[in-house]
Every structure is written in structure tokens, then in C-alpha cells.
């Protein structure tokens, strides 16, 4: 019984000292252990421990996918929506998207320093990590089509967000059809 009492009191002391540590590190992620000090303020991210302080937030930095460079290129290419959509459980690029793939390939070949991120997405059905796999398949499928048209793999980064970034809110089949997509996002233009 004494042990339990001691544990509870020890826990209390532990929390107090953690609170102090968290306070003194409120604006950086430097470490008691060097391995943990990765300075994670980049990309609008904040970290905090469960110490009493250390929770704060800044502004979100990133908007919807088709702003800035992608919109600029899409306008230039005459494309409204620089996106390839997929049938349920499929990663095959349908014929109706040949045009989008072709004009992006043309642009990339004409601008060798341009870079495209292929963002694969799924609908929210099923396992989240399995959907990461499905989204990667879709992104790779568009990547392979672009490479078949002569685009260098150096200009392409396929990535999967799985079901984490739905295109539209709502739990309907119509919404899900818009979720199953690869967004062609320019991260550098020539």
C-alpha cells in the first residue's frame, strides 16, 4: 500500500517538473535528448508535450490544391480542373483523361525544370492505410502514363493521401466519385 502512495506522489512530482520543461521550451522543439530536437516549426506544424504549457498555434499555411502555380499552368493549358478521376476500386486512367495527361506531358517536356506532384486520393470506404495504398496506385498510374509520353521521372513525385483529403464533404456516392482522383499539382514551373 505504501508503494501505491509513493507512486501517486512520484507521479505528481514528475508532472510538475515536466511542466517546467515544457514551459522553457515553448517556442522550440529542442531536446533533452538530441535525437528529438528536429526543430519542427517548418510547414506550419507545432509540437507540444503533455506538460501544462507548450500548446500554441499559428496560421495554417496551405490552401486548396489548385492555387498559385497549378492554376497558372492549368489556365495556360486550357484545363479547368487539372485532375484525373477514377472508377470505384480502379487505378486505370480512362480514355476521357487522355487530353489532360497529354497537355501536362507537353508542358513538362517543354519546361524541363517544372515539377509535378501527383496526389492520389480515394473515397473514405474501408481502411485508411489500405486506401493510402490505393491512392499510390492511382498516382503511379498517372506517373506511368506521363512517362510513356516522354516525361522524365525526375519531374514527377507521386504521393498518396488516401482518404485523408476528400474533394467534397458528404457521405454520398456522388461525393465519393469526386474523391477518387489524382490531382496534378505543380510545385515548380519552368
Amino acid at each position: 500500500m505504501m508503494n501505491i502512495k509513493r507512486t501517486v506522489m512520484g507521479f505528481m512530482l514528475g508532472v510538475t517538473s515536466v511542466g517546467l520543461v515544457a514551459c522553457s521550451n515553448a517556442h522550440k522543439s529542442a531536446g533533452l535528448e538530441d535525437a528529438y530536437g528536429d526543430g519542427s516549426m517548418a510547414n506550419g506544424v507545432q509540437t507540444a508535450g503533455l506538460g501544462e504549457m507548450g500548446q500554441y498555434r499559428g496560421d495554417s499555411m496551405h490552401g486548396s490544391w489548385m492555387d498559385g502555380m497549378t492554376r497558372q499552368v492549368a489556365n495556360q493549358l486550357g484545363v479547368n480542373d487539372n485532375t484525373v478521376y477514377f472508377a470505384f476500386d480502379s487505378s486505370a486512367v480512362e480514355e476521357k483523361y487522355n487530353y489532360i495527361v497529354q497537355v501536362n506531358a507537353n508542358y513538362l517536356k517543354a519546361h524541363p525544370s517544372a515539377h509535378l506532384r501527383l496526389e492520389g486520393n480515394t473515397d473514405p470506404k474501408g481502411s485508411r492505410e489500405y486506401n493510402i495504398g490505393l491512392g499510390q496506385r492511382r498516382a503511379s498510374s498517372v506517373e506511368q502514363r506521363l512517362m510513356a509520353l516522354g516525361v522524365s521521372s525526375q519531374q514527377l513525385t507521386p504521393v498518396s493521401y488516401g482518404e485523408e483529403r476528400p474533394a467534397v464533404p458528404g457521405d454520398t456516392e456522388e461525393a465519393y466519385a469526386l474523391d477518387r482522383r489524382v490531382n496534378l499539382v505543380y510545385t515548380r514551373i519552368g
Partner: protein
Amino acid sequence: MNHLAIIGTFLCDEGKEILMLNRHFLIIRLFLLGICFSFANNAYAVLDIELTNGVTQSIPMAVLTFQGENNLALGQPFSAVIRHDLNLSGQFDARNPSLRGEVGTPEAVAMNYQYWRGQSVDDVLVGRIQPVGFHRYQVMVGLVDLYRGTTAPTKILINEQFNVSDGDLRGLAHHISDLVYEKLTGVKGIFSTRLAYVLVTQTLEGKKQYSLQVSDVDGYRPRSILISPQPIMSPSWSPDGKQVAYVSFESKLPEIYISNVTTGQRRKITSFPGINGAPEWSPDGSRLAVALSMKQSNPNIYLIHLGTGQLTQITRDNSINTEPAFSPDGRSLIFTSDRGGRPQIYQVNLGTLETKRVTFNGNYNASASFLPDAKNIVLLHRGDTLFNIAVMDLKNGTVKELTKAGRDESPSAAPNGKVIVYATRVNGKGVLEMVSMDGNVQLRLPDLLGTVQEPAWSPYMS
């Protein structure tokens, strides 16, 4: 502590009255937790608990109002925390019968055992809380079993006192729940464990914000250990409960990190081309099993030794291989693969890499993990069209569905294997639910602010 403001209210005893009147209720809202904490400039809503399915077989007991508990700023009465914990397990029907006069000690309950037997309870918990200094309290607690006496009619199972600061009172209430649970069931309680989960909210500018949250198991005391404008996925606790591994898309590409839960400090573990996903700790804490796609279009399972960084490839094919989970002995992994056309669960021996298919029942099985008994796995199962949480007996292949909403996912078992927490959707919002292993008790923990997903139940913290 002056930055901590409690700005809500609670209405806790309503639910309990209904519970006493009608044991076969369908929906009881236990508005135990309608409070908000404000830390610095941040407001976090706690999870709100609703009991959505009735209790069938449970131990009836009285958890009396503790003397002196009304003067504490806990958000809910000390004894209500204990009552709620025990009811959350599904194995107790913990009530608070109204009393004439005060009941101060376990000895008094023992003396008066005939009265208490008349209240149709098997056990009585009594307690007293006294201030003993600056923000410090002495808490005395006694548990009397009305039927298990050998030399006397009753037996005093717990008679203890604790000395804590006010900030630790809630932790102590959970600790007392654990003591009671273990005394009366013989199984270690899980009320001092935690949940990690991902909370998705909208900023004032309408942008999504993802936070990796850690709360008490009853949803109280939620804190963010990471806030990001990009998705966060797949939290997984280290076996000592001190660290959480997860996937963060903060660079726009997936990377695996490990955060120290206490300090918030973290390190990047993987940042390979393509998928970096599904981190899961080995039982000895030395390795992570992960899903990496490298330059391929599909993920395979790898092991990363956290001390040396050494990478070992486990699966090697062109199908989706993901969601690894270690067996309790650390010698094998179960994982999800669509190598047979549809996602199913497979098991690989880490010594020989010999692999066998585990699930044959249902057209979609995923997100599997072992229960502590090593004989059963909990998983996401679609028999026909509905995604439900199920338990499967590895020996005979029997699949038992524990839920039936059809939009359930991300199951995670409590460390004693008695309750599963999982994510589902209600009215277009992600919420967490808990279900007991017999499927009889279901609880809902919606967040007031946003959508909640991917719960991970911590191991025992001590």
C-alpha cells in the same frame, strides 16, 4: 494553473437515475463531460460520452458520493469519475443510491450490511476527501464486499488513504477505479490508460487543421501533441506508453515520426520516396514495422531497428501490403494484403518469412491487431456490404461482429483486451465509440469541435 479555465457545466446524475430505473434502455445520454478546457489561447473540447447500448450482465455496486468532494474543481464529482469508469467497462452497474445521513467509513458499511444488501448491490465503495494543505488533499477510500466474508458477513477489500495535489485528483480517481476493478474481476483495470487519436477541425479561415490528441480513457484531459495543416495518420503507442509513432504529411509527403508524449519532442524516422505508413511498435520497443513503397507503386512491409536504423524488408511483391501488427511474442506479424485480389489478413513468421492467409470469411478484412491473449485478433471486417468491427479466433477462424453500424473502422483494443475503441461516423462527423468484447456495451465519445478518427489505446502506463 490560472490559464486553465473551466467554462462548461455538467449534469451527471440524470443518466444514472435512468440506468437504475430501466436496465434495458436503448440510448442514455450521460452528459458527464460537457466542459471545455482553455489552455493559453487554445480551446479544446473534451469528448462527450453517450451510452448507446444497454448493460446486460454486470456487477451491481454502490459508489457513494465521497465526503468533501463537492468543493473540488474537477469538472465532475470525484465519485462520478469512478462510477463512470466502472460503467464504461460494461462489467459494472455502478450506482449512487441516495442516503439518509452520511456514510463515512467502510466499517460503518460493514456494520450496516443488511441495509446495503437490501439495496440490491454486491459491493459498496465509500470515501472521504479532506484538504490537508496548499492544494493538497487526503483521500480515504474503502471497498466493502457484502457477500464474500468468511469470518464475518462482509469483507473489506480496500481500505486505503492517498495524499495528492489537486492536479492529480482525477488521476487518483482513475487509479481507484483500477483498484476496484481488479479486486472485483481479477483483471487489471485500464482506467489510468490513455487514448491517442486524430482530431480534424476547421480554422476560422475554413482550412482544415489536424491535431494528434492524447486524452484520458474517458475522454477527459485532451491535449494536442502535434497540430498541423496537413493530415496526420496512424498513431501507435510505444509499449512503455511514453512515445507515439505516427504519419505526418506536413511536408506534403508522408513521413513517419516518433513523439515523446510528455515533452512533445520528436524525431523523424522515415522519409523515403512514396508511402511511409502504418507504423507499429514491436512488443520490446526496439523496432517499428512500417509500410514503405520506395520507388514502386505499392507498399511492402519493412522493419526498422530504432537503435541502428537498420531496415529489413519483410514482404516483397506488387500488391498492397500494409497495416503490420506484431504478435504478442514479437515473432510474427499480421498485415493487410490484396495479393489475392481483395484485402485480407495474412501472417508472416519473422524468422522464416513463411506467410499464410489468416482470413477467409468476408470480402474485405483489414486493420487487424492481436488481442493480449494472442489467440484472437480484432479487425475491420466486411461480410457483405457493411464495414464492422469484428473479433476472429485464430484457431478456428470464427468471426464475431461486435458492431453493426456499417461505417466502423480503426479498431484498437484496451491493454486488458476487454474493450475495443474504434472510429465511426455519425451525422457526417467522425466520432469514437467503445464496445465491450461481448458486444453488449457501446459508448460514444464525440468531440464537440470536430471530427475524431484513428483511436489508439495506450498500453498500461506503469
